[in-house]
Structure formats: C-alpha cells, structure tokens
C-alpha cells in the first residue's frame, strides 16, 4: 500500500510548500468554488487538483436546453475551457471518477488506478438524473435502451439531438413535467417531432407551483402543440431493439420513437456514502460547508444538505461557493452560509414562470391574493404573513416580479394597496426593484441622477433618505421618483438606513409634524414666519427651505391677520408670476372656467404686442400664457392687462377647467361652464399645501377630464353632480375617488370647499391630493366631509369662507410695490442662455 502511494505521487509535489487541495467534481459548483478560491489568492496557498467525470472543461448546465433547441451551440455554453485550467495551474483529470476517499490517510482513489494525497478536499459531485424503475428501461447489459435518454449532460444532449434528427423518428415522449421535462419537450419540437409530456404528478411543475397555476401552465404548454398527460405513471418502455412506445398506468399507451427521462435529479452521494460521511438526503454540511466528520473535507452544490435543505438551483450554489472560499482560504474565517431563500424567475418552454417561497397559505392568518386569467395564461398568487411576502407564484406576466423578488428576499414593507403588488396601477410605485436596476439607469428624470450616484452618496456617508436626496438632488424635481429613491437607498445601505425623524415634520427646519406645529402656532399666536423660527426652530435658526411652507400655512391659519414678510415668499409669490429658466416670468391672467371675451382677447393681444411678448401659449388649464416677461415689466404688463391674476405660479388653487356644457353642447346635461366659473370666483388663489387643479364636465363624456383632477365635478343625468377627489394626470396618474353625488350646484360649492379646507389643514407640505386622499382613506374623508362624522363641517365651512373673504388680487401690487425694488431685475445684465422662441402660426 505504502509503495503504491509513493509511486503515484508526482515528484514535483515534493518541496511545494502549498497545501494540496483536491476538488472532486468539475461541474458548476466545483469550478465556481475554485474560481472563488483563486480570487482570494488561493493559488498561493493551494496546489489544486480537480477530478471531472465528464471529459470536458466546465459548462453551464442550465443552458443545455438552449443547446437542445438549437438556440446555442455546445461551444457557447462553456464556462471554463481546458486552457483555463492550464493557465491557473490546476491539475485537471477529465473523464476520471473518484471512487473512494480515505479521510484518515487523506487519500483519494480514482478509477484510473491512481491514488492522490490531499490536505484539504472539496466534494462537488452534483446530481444525477433520477431514473424511475420501469420495465424495459435498460438492455440486458445494463445500458439504456436505444432511444431512451436522460437530460443531464452535454453528451445526453448531443445524443438526443442526433437521435431526434433521424428521419424515421417522428414522435417523442418526455417523462416528467417539471422544469427540465418541459424544456426538453420544447427543445425536441425544434426537430419536427410530435412531443407528449407524461407527468406522474397532479399538475405540471409541482415542485414550484400550486395546482391552479399548474393547470394554467398546462393550457399554455398545450397551445404550443405539446400534449400533456398528468397523473400518468409510466410502467414500461416498449420495444425490443429500440424504443417503440411507452405503457402508462390507467392511460392509453403512447407510441413513440424516443423517450426522454426528466423525472428529477438526485444528489450524487455514492462516493460520500462509501467513504463514511454522514449522508441523509445529501451530504450533511455545517454553515462553513464542512462535512460532519472532517473539518478538512468540504462539500458544495447540489450534493449537499444544509440545515435540512437540498438546493437544485444555481443561486444558492453561488452563495455556498463564496462562503467555502472565504473559509478555506482564511479570507473571512467567520463567513457563514445560512441557507438561501429560493426565488426563481425563468422561461419554461416559452412561458414566463416565477416562483418563490410558499406556494399557498399555511396558517389561518396568512393573507392570500390570487388572480387567474387562464385564457391569457396569466396567474398570480401571493402569500403574505405578518406584513411580509412569504410566497409568490407568477405565470405569464412578469411585470411585478422584480419588485416581488426583492420584497420576498429582503422582507420589504408591502404597499397598503395590495393590488399594487400584482399590477401597475399607475400609482406612485417603482416598476423595477432597486437591485435589478442597472447602475447607469437614470432614477431621477428631472435632475438626471443615476442609481450609481445614489449608491455613491450612501457609500459617502449619507445615512438617511433625505440626506441622499439633499446630496444628489434626486427626488427634488417632480418628486415622482421618491419611492424608487427610497428603495435604492435602503438597498444600498443594506438595511442600515436610519429612521429619518424629520420625515414627518411639516417643514425641515422646525421639528414638529403638522398638527403639533399648528397647535404651537395657535397657542403662541405666531403670526409671521420669523416668529415661528424664533419660537419653534432649534436655536431659533431660520431655514430657507422651510420658509415657503410656513408662509403658506400661516396665511391659511390667520388669513387677514397674517403678518406677511416678503422674504418668506418664494420668488413666484413675491412677484406673482412663474419664474422661467432664463429668469424671466410667465404671466397668466385669470380666465374663469376658460371663458373669455372679445374685449379680453383684444386687450391680451395689445399687451403682447406692446411688450413684444416672445411666446403666447394656451395652457392646459384653458388660459393664455404670456411667456418671457422681464421682472421689471410685470407691473406695466398687469396694468395694461387690467385682469386679475390667474395664479399660475403658487402652491394654491389654480384653475377650473370646464367643457361647454348644456348651453351649447348637444350632449350636455348640466351647466358645467357656469359652475366652473363660480368655483373659480369663490376659491381663486387660496393657499394650499400643494397646487389644486379642478375641472367641471357637463356630462359623463368628461371632456374637462374631471376624473384626474384634485377636485373634479361631472354632471350626470337627472340634474345631479358627481364630485371626485384625489385625481391626477401629471407625474402620477390616478383616477379620483367619488366623494359624493349631489343634486345642486350649491352643494358642489359647499362640499368642494369643505374638502379643500380639510386638505389645507391636514395635508403635508407639497402633498398633492392624489397622495393625501389615499393616505387618509376615501371612506374616512367621505365620513368627515359628507356625513360630518367628526362634527367639524361647520367649522371647515367657516374657515374657508374667512380665507375667501381675505382674498386680494396680488396683481394690485403692480401699482404700489410692497417692497423696495420688488420688480427690480435680478437678471445679470448680459444675456443668459435663452429659451428658443417660436413664432406663432
């Protein structure tokens, strides 16, 4: 024995100070583990020897179905060529099988008669195809009957292709309706074969999906021309010299020329069993991937059982390889594998399938959502436990899969509106998960901030979402990307995001939420922005970013008693016009309900001509916008116009869009134009936490787009009016919720005003109604506004009436400036980059 050993040891080994590492298995797990070891400078520590059963380098087994279908050649799927092993000085024994491990003497015996010594050993023997016992499976010599194939190796695949291409072979049966079986069936169709799938289970892919999804999958697969037989157990393979058909229990027999057995895989554990390692369903390993018996013998991949789990997917295998390499090289001795949450997203025979976690509920308290549309091959089921996603099955429509996988993997908080997890509802929701997003993907489309910029901000020390947004200005434009920004920051910080205490403050510079802030303002009778800072801000410090929000809030609360400090106003509110990119302003005179007159139009035309207005444009709110007015010209423009402000600049009540209504329209059922004009006359210019855009439509055709407005009114037959709230069609799309159906225009005026006052008092700064209404809940708002459940209706009505009474047209400032140089230019005297001017048609 000793002499054999000495003879078999290569001379070169003597004197090599490195430890001898043997890897048994050259499949995806074995080769990946070696790659990971090399990345950790393993070549300095180890002289590596690998044994591979198959006579090739390492290839991507997952892609074999593509080789079968002809989408890829077998050359395309190699991960490591033979040359790679040479370059990395790895001794590779291909086509050699390890037959026994002597762990006491640290020797590996192989079927080429060699004995090799090791210091450390990795078992990565993978899996074998499971061949169920069937009569006629094998010939007398034990080989498979000609025409019978397993589907596991590149040789299996080549054999199948060759056999399928034979002219006389027209029909194939695939035994097994799992992932591999369906892939085989689809692949064989490429050779013109008629294919039957024979599955012993009750439904297809029963390891991944439940019965309902399995049934929908069957329909989708049959649409492809593959016949599916479920609950069909194959008892025998017919044919003397070669396959001629199969016998099924309680099903008619199937005549065929070829049989592919894809009835699952079994861990290859014979070597480990024979060598005395603990094997249950597979080789038992600890969190460092070491075998029970021997700290110098590791195992990795499909052949291992970790904490009771055996994995047949590639992702867990990668995770195991990392831990093993960390540990064996000493790169991270504390590295530990804690098991994988398996989530898979794949295309099976042309059908998108994603599955993760539980297939169905296990406890009485589990929430289950199921949507099925068999005709389209769509199935979605979600299992939620304690506000966490614990399982999901998706067929056909993968639009939400990225989000679901992330929610499942990281235990993310789930949307209150559960349907958002299944469908894109047009509400503020991220379509792609943070993790899947490419680094250079633009997250904030307003300020051009990429995912990578956000990640860098986190790595640079920003610990809160707000800090990242301040640093990068992501989310500081229209704000529609904030949800995604939050997700990316959370992902990049790996759960180390700090709870942002300021998230609930009304403005960033005063540490109080809106109710507490309003209480303090009332209690201390704070009537100016500077007084609020002095009394409530830390160290009494002013904060530029808080001024606008406080000014709006104080005006709403104190109306005519508000002490208006002009520096608290944003430039638009100081000069009552909307600042443009070149520092000029736009002027939009009020045009109630979008109704104008000859006199108005003539005056606007005269003003535009006199002031050489560069651009005259109709707005989406049915008004006329004069663009490119220098600040110093504003008073003269207003004086010449002699029309009230249209408020196209403030966080305030903006406009009421209307349709023609019953006056002229032959479909009109209500006087929408008049109601729109009345609404605008009453509520013009009211400050609010964010802008308010309204509409009134004269019939359910909705020409004024009432369903997507902050407050939208629709006339319906019978002289009634529907009032919708919380709609939006800007950065977000949301259909408004029905607040009430009323019988008179007077009721519309009252309920709209009451709702707007409730919104003014309770919404967060810059929170549009499309967020506010779902946050409070439309039922709750209905109760308060329509049913007066809280007994505050009278007070709300009085409060908004007071605000209406305090209204003063700001354009009157033009004749009598409030501050020195109110309309003095701030523009640099040289010409700035100017917006190109279009000439009208």
């Amino acid at each position, binding site marked *: 024995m000793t002499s054999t050993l000495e003879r078999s040891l290569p001379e070169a080994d003597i004197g090599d100070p490195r430890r001898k590492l043997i890897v048994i298995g050259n499949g995806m797990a074995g080769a990946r583990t070696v790659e990971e070891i090399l990345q950790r400078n393993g070549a300095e520590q180890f002289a590596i020897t690998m044994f591979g059963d198959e006579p090739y380098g390492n290839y991507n087994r997952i892609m074999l179905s593509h080789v079968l279908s002809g989408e890829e050649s077998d050359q395309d799927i190699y991960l490591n060529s033979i040359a790679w092993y040479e370059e990395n000085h790895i001794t590779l024994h291909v086509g050699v099988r390890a037959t026994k491990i002597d762990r006491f003497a640290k020797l590996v015996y192989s079927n080429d008669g060699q004995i090799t010594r090791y210091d450390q050993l990795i078992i990565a023997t993978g899996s074998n195809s499971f061949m169920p016992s069937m009569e006629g499976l094998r010939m007398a010599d034990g080989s498979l009957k000609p025409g019978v194939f397993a589907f596991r190796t590149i040789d299996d695949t080549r054999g199948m292709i060759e056999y399928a291409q034979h002219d006389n072979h027209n029909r194939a049966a695939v035994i097994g309706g799992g992932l591999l079986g369906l892939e085989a069936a689809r692949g064989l169709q490429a050779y013109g074969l008629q294919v039957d799938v024979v599955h012993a289970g009750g439904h297809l892919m029963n390891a991944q999906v439940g019965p309902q999804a399995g049934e929908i999958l069957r329909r989708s697969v049959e649409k492809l021309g593959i016949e599916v037989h479920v609950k069909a157990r194959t008892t025998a393979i017919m044919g003397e010299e070669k396959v001629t058909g199969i016998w099924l229990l309680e099903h008619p027999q199937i005549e065929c020329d070829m049989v592919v057995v894809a009835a699952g895989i079994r861990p290859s554990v014979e070597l480990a069993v024979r060598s005395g390692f603990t094997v249950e369903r597979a080789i038992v390993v600890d969190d460092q991937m070491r075998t029970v018996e021997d700290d110098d013998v590791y195992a990795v991949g499909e052949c291992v059982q970790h904490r009771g789990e055996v994995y047949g997917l590639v992702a867990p295998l990668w995770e195991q390889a990392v831990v093993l390499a960390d540990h064996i090289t000493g790169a991270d001795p504390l590295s530990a594998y804690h098991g994988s949450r398996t989530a898979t997203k794949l295309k099976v025979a042309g059908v998108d399938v994603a599955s993760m976690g539980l297939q169905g509920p296990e406890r009485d308290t589990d929430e289950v959502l199921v949507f099925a549309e068999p005709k389209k091959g769509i199935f979605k089921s979600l299992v939620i436990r304690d506000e966490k996603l614990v399982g999901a099955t998706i067929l056909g429509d993968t639009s939400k899969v990225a989000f679901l996988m992330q929610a499942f993997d990281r235990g993310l908080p789930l949307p209150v509106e559960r349907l958002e997890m299944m469908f894109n509802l047009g509400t503020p929701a991220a379509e792609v998960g943070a993790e899947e997003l490419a680094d250079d993907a633009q997250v904030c489309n307003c*300020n051009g901030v990429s995912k990578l910029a956000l990640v860098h901000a986190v790595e640079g020390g920003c610990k809160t979402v707000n800090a990242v947004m*301040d*640093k*990068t*200005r992501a989310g*500081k434009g229209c704000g529609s990307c904030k949800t995604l920004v939050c997700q990316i920051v959370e992902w990049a910080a790996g759960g180390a995001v700090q709870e942002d205490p300021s998230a609930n403050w009304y403005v960033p*510079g005063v540490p109080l939420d809106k109710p507490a802030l309003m209480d303090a303002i009332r209690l201390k009778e704070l009537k100016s922005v*500077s007084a609020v800072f002095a009394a409530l801000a830390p160290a009494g*410090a*002013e*904060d*530029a*970013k808080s*001024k*606008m929000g406080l000014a709006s809030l104080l005006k709403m609360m104190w109306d005519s008693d508000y002490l208006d*400090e*002009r*520096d*608290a*106003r*944003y*430039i*638009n509110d*100081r000069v009552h016009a909307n*600042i443009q*990119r*070149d*520092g000029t302003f736009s002027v939009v005179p009020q045009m109630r309900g979008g109704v104008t007159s000859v006199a108005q139009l003539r005056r606007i035309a005269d003003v535009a001509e006199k002031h050489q207005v560069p651009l005259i444009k109709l707005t989406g709110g049915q008004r006329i916008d004069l663009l490119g007015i220098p*600040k110093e010209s504003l008073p003269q423009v207003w004086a010449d116009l002699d029309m009230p402000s249209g408020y196209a600049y403030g966080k305030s009540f903006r406009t009421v869009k209307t349709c023609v209504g019953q006056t002229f329209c032959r479909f009109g059922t209500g006087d929408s134009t008049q109601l729109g004009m009345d609404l605008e006359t009453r509520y013009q210019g009211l400050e609010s936490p964010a802008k308010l855009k309204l509409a009134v439509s004269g019939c359910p055709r909705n020409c004024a787009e009432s369903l997507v407005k902050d407050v939208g009114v629709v006339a319906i037959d019978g002289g009634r009016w529907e009032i919708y709230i919380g709609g939006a069609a800007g950065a977000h799309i949301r259909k408004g919720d029905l607040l009430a159906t009323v019988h008179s225009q007077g009721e519309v005026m009252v309920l709209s005003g009451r709702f707007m006052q409730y919104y003014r008092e309770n919404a967060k700064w810059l929170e549009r109604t499309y967020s506010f209404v779902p946050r409070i809940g439309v039922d709750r708002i209905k109760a308060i506004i329509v049913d007066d459940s809280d007994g505050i209706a009278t007070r709300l009505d009085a409060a908004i009436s007071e605000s209406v009474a305090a209204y003063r047209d700001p354009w009157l400032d033009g004749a009598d400036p409030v*501050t*020195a*140089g*109110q309309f*003095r*230019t*701030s*523009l*640099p*005297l*040289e010409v*700035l*980059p100017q917006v190109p001017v279009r000439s009208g048609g």
Partner: protein
Amino acid sequence: MNATTDLRLGPIEQIPIGEGRAFDVFGEQVAIFRLRSGRVYAVGAVCPHRGGPIADGQIDGSIVLCPLHLNAFELSTGCSTTGQPDLGSWPVAVDDNGDILVRSRAG
C-alpha cells in the same frame, strides 16, 4: 497685486429685509443679501448650474437657494452645498451712513 477698491452702492434700504438684490460691481454681477440679523453678504448673482438669478433666491442665516432648481450656496463663502461650482463671494459692509460698500476682489 492690485490695491483693493471699495464701491459705494447706495442705501441699504434698496434691499428689503431678508431679501437680495443684484448689483454691478466693477463689471461683475453680484447678489447682495440683507439678513434679518442686519448682516449683509455678497455672492455671485448667476447660478453656475443653469444661470438662475441668485438675488431672487430665498435665504436663511447661512445659505441662499437658487430659485430655479434649489441649489444651495453658503452666503459667507459662495460655496455650493449641493455639488455645484462656487458662486464666489465679495467683502461687503454697511457704513455709518447706511450705505452698502463692496470691495473688489483681490487679484
């Protein structure tokens, strides 16, 4: 090294409390701010980001926000806190007559 020169820009009352106004300082556009505390600061009047009028921005005790895209700059130094190039800053004071005095930048 040139000698520094002071430029008298007239009464501080041209600038409302808490606001800014733009001035020409030896051919350069300068935004001068009058804080509620009585302090005055002078920084460049043109936002380096997209040319926004800094004098129209809102301020507090330490920063000014450009009105166009809300980039922030320190009043005392002109340095951006939102990753933009600097505005530059000018020494500025109010004399006993209540006039604004700006000093040209050395260089």
